């Protein structure tokens, strides 16, 4: 689903990512971890073409992203669901309209759209809040609205950048549980997070980044030394 082939990304004279190689199979669930500045966000940005690599090739769905023109970026993004740390919700629109945005872009309308929006809201347990403004919701609820919006288009790939960054452990576990559910119906999930304790409970593949290089790939050992390794 995702393949990085010797990918480097340089900002000024600083390497955010250097010579990165890895592959994620379809239906896989992986965490991306490392200190802030290790390149987690950069990696996600390359996948959704917010940035383009300085060198190397990124493949999503066997599609070489270097070959996509700027005009084709929107159609890629429509097939990748993204959950942001700061939610990126529109505060002047209610929950329903926020979740409906990707569907409007894809050209859904009327009943068809309503059905899909409510299905997504139902999955994240916010069906009764569709009329509320995001500002009236708790942080955990806002994040779940963000997740509903990311999955409403039924993407095959779901990315999340620190989705539990602002949440307490209990809510974080809930959110992770949601991602797990999506993974179980076949969605490939890649989550950038530095919450090692939480990652450890999930027993999933972990890609550890440090200074733009891949320093760990595989499940975390349950001993605490492993976390130091993953932290790089």
């Amino acid at each position, binding site marked *: 689903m995702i393949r990085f082939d010797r990918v480097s990304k340089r900002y000024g004279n600083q390497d955010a990512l250097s010579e990165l190689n890895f592959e994620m199979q379809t239906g896989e669930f992986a965490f991306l971890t490392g200190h802030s500045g290790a390149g987690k966000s950069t990696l996600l940005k390359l996948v959704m073409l917010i940035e383009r690599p300085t060198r190397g090739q990124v493949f999503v769905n066997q599609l070489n992203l270097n070959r996509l023109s700027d005009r084709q970026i929107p159609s890629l993004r429509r*097939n990748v669901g993204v959950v942001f740390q700061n939610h990126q919700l529109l505060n002047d629109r209610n929950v329903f309209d926020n979740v409906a945005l990707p569907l409007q872009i894809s050209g859904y309308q009327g009943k068809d759209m309503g059905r899909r929006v409510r299905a997504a809201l139902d999955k994240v347990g916010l069906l009764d809040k569709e009329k509320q403004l995001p500002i009236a919701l708790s942080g955990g609820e806002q994040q779940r609205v963000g997740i509903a919006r990311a999955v409403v288009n*039924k993407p095959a790939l779901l990315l999340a950048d620190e989705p539990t960054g602002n949440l307490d452990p209990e809510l974080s576990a809930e959110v992770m549980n949601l991602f797990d559910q999506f993974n179980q119906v*076949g969605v490939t999930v890649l989550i950038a997070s530095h919450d090692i304790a939480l990652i450890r409970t999930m027993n999933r593949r972990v890609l550890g980044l440090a200074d733009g290089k891949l320093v760990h790939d595989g499940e975390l050992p349950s001993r605490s030394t492993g976390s130091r390794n993953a932290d790089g």
Partner: protein
Amino acid sequence: MAEQNRRIPRANRRSESRSAKASARQVKREKSNSRDSTSGFAVYNAKLAAYFQHHKASASKSLMQLVVAPWQSFLTCLVIAIALALPSLLYLFLDNVQSQTHQWDQPAQISVYLHKDAKQTAIDQLQQRLSENAVTDSVTFVSAEAGLSQFQSVSGFGDILDSLEDNPIPPVLVITPNQLELAQLEAFTAQVRTNAIVESVQMDFEWLAKLEQLIRLGGRIVAALSLIFGLAVVLVIGNIIRLAIASRIDEIVITKLVGGTDAFVRRPFLYTGMWYGIGGGVLALVIVVIAQWWLSEPISKLAQLYQSQIDVSGFSFSQSLMIIASACILSSMGAWLAVSRHLAEIKPE
């Protein structure tokens, strides 16, 4: 596209690998669709329907945004209206002056005033000779009596003329020249003047030629003003749309993040510009009508003083539509400029 999306979830439920393949196909298909829209009629139709749907939604939503801030929108429209009303009024003024002069029009004539006691045979001879000249188109004889009654009817001095015992009007030969070359006509009139029965010769189109030139100059001024004020409209709307874009940066970024195309993001702003244009155009017509109404009374009073009647003509229906359309086009252009300049700069980070 909607068709394809509908297919994906089913595949999802069936099996993982299948869903991946399906969505891989989907991305590829969308890619090819953007180039070749004939692939698959159903897909194309759904896409087209969605396209029109978004146009409709953008149009009504941007209109609503203007309606909920009525004072702000009104002021913007007023700026457009004033910018358009000024050249429009000047145009109307010139148009009316021109149509008035055409009413007076026997446009280019040379009047040859004859001695009162000139013999009719001599006059006939002269008329014959003049009409054979190369520069004349026609020569008509207006007798003293005919001239008097004509003058009575148009001048408004009827009562005074009635009280006169003698007819003060001389017989006249009215020449319509077939050209307006002043030098040549002057030579011609000098020659006519030498005739014994001719008292004086008057070319009464000199001022008309000057007026024509003035009107032509006025036309140029109207054109220049229209250009300048049109540019002002483009810039004003460009600036307003720029501000609108700045105030909705979050929305634009998020829309781009979840896959909105530039055209999708652009659309509501273009419609905002269009609505401002339509509002401004209508308001400009209102200003023109008010100005016309305000001026019509003194104009008709003035006309009465000259014992004449002046009908001030306004814009016809199609001209009114033209004004609204041009307002619409100008402000859409402004919106387009702002959008194409500033939207590309906004990229998610």
